[in-house]
């Protein structure tokens, strides 16, 4: 069961900040992040890769919402 961050509706840099805080607290594991802008999707993908985590998948859910599945090992 992944942990989930709902970053929908949050403006820059909040989605990235919340995601990085979470993965730093977790160290390793699985995390899902919900976002609703392409900018947040791109920024989170870029940021977590810089921390050694990977983006396993990005699924579009409904109109313009994305679920990013992240993992770090």
């Amino acid at each position: 069961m992944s942990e989930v961050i709902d970053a929908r509706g949050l403006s820059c840099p909040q989605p990235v900040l919340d995601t990085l805080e979470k993965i730093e607290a977790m160290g390793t594991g699985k995390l899902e992040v919900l976002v609703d802008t392409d900018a947040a999707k791109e920024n989170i993908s870029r940021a977590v890769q810089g921390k050694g985590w990977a983006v396993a998948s990005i699924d579009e859910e409904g109109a313009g919402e994305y679920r990013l599945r992240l993992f770090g090992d």
Partner: protein
Amino acid sequence: MNNFFATRKGIVAVGLIIGIFAALLQYLGNPGNMGICVACFERDIAGAVGLHRAGVVQYMRPEIIGFVLGAMIAAFLGRDFRPRAGSAPIVRFILGVFAMIGALVFLGCPWRALLRLAGGDLNAVIGLAGLIAGIWIGTLFFRKGYNLGRSQKTYTSVGLLMPLVMVGLLLLMLIYPQIDGQAKSGVLLYSLKGPGAMHAPLLISLGVGLLVGAIAQRSRFCTMGAFRDLILFKQVHLLVGVVALLAAAFAMNLVLGQFNMGFEHQPVAHSQAIWNFAGMLLAGLCFALAGGCPGRQLFMAGEGDGDAAVFVFGMIVGAGFAHNFGLASSPKGVGPHGIAAVIIGLAVCLFIGFTMRKKA
């Protein structure tokens, strides 16, 4: 296809294009080291519609109109037009007001600070230092849980309001075009001298605005974000775009004979270092707290963000106050009440930053 402009090469390309065209716009008539200045140009628009009566800075700048409409078109083509609104709009308005006041104490937005530096104006180094210091203070608030809350999805028509306003301003400009030697054409004011009288041809300005608006929307180009991401996340993605802008404008200025290094006698600038620093400190903090530099706010407004649109209107109204109340600087130095306004603005930002937090 993935979004090319969101890649490293993409953001560099965007920075280069903005730098090249900004220098060219100066060559074609825009004021010195002001090929593109979002703060200055919004201030000129405020003057064109009579929100202030500073006769030297009144012109309906087509670049700004193009930024919003170009971003809107790119957002629709890229399928990321996202109508949204409702994240503390009143706070964004106030931040826009003081962002403009701070920028007009320095005499330029972050884009112009880069263009001033690219033209050899060393006062810009001090302004950029102030900008970075302001952004750094903003990151401290973010680390302490500062958060303006979520926006809500809304009707497409809400997201279209800002682009429609820009279409309206463009129509006004076409209905009441500039008449040689006249300060007024219908409802619009036009400067006869000063920076407001200096401009590239309308269609060129509009075309560059549309192009820059489109590529900046795709790339999320943001000068404030460049420094914020460096400080907050040690990320240089946006910063390389900013450096590319600076390098391209510098090279173009050398080619076009627009480079003149020094502190004194720089175009539309003063050399009161403390207030160049403090003005941009205030502006940088406002941009950080509002989540985008003035350019980025225009592009977000174009892609449907009603809160960014409110920030833009805050800046335009702020320009009215800045000139009506003697807060804006001039080449002679700071305005009679500019210093007081910067201090009040910083106090307001601290109030916002300290009190609008999710965490204890």
